[in-house]
């Protein structure tokens, strides 16, 4: 098997799902087989917003969501010497304390895993077609969550680095 230098030796795994994410099982699935020295994971949770929030509703663009996350993960795998990468994003109703998104990156040394996981999350925020709306404990459906400039800035920094 021949590979160009930029082609990673593995395929990033991507999943878009309405189900809960079993973090322990996902971490197990990253098993580096003795080559990986470092595993960085990120889990994004639904906050309760001080008790105001009943659930977040996550709308997504089926098809494009998977494609965009796969594109982001492939860019991470081309930019850092990773041994594994996994990105999972939920849609539908998510209760406070539940996970919304999970990212895991393994590599020989820790720098690549930290940077790639952070990169993945920054681009998941700004490029993956998901939209959050708040369902409040008083029974009303709140507004759509507004995109944050800080998220744009976070993803922009990777163009400069």
């Amino acid at each position, binding site marked *: 098997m021949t590979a160009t230098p930029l082609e990673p030796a593995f395929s990033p795994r991507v999943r878009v799902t309405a189900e809960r994410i079993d973090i322990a099982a996902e971490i197990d699935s990253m098993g580096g087989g003795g080559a990986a020295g470092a595993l960085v994971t990120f889990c994004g949770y639904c906050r309760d917003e001080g008790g105001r929030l009943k659930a977040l509703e996550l709308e997504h663009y089926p098809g494009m969501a998977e*494609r965009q996350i796969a594109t982001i993960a492939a860019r991470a795998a081309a930019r850092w010497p990773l041994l594994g990468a996994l990105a999972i994003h939920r849609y539908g109703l998510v209760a406070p304390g539940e996970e919304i998104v999970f990212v895991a990156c393994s590599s020989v040394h820790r720098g690549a895993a930290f940077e790639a996981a952070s990169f993945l999350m920054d681009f998941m925020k700004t490029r993956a077609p998901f939209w959050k709306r708040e369902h409040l404990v008083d029974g009303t459906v709140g507004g759509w969550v507004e995109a944050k400039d800080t998220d744009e800035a976070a993803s922009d920094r990777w163009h400069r680095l």
Partner: protein
Amino acid sequence: MKLVYFAWVRERIGLTEEEVELPAGIVTVEDLLHWLKGRGPNYDAALQAPEIVRVAIDQEHGDHSEPIAGAREIAIFPPMTGG
């Protein structure tokens, strides 16, 4: 051409998707948004500030200056808030 809408763009227009026949002269995403905005008060409400909506052409992000000729599906939505 198929147009699909998400989040508050979808809510304000009142449709999840529709097939449209574009009139002559609609070349870029910007042209499309301008034309859509004139189709009725619901479209006008969704596209009050057309510069802030995002567009995907056949499921890839596109700039407003991009040509849309040949596209099968154009999605219009607010800035994304996943993650």
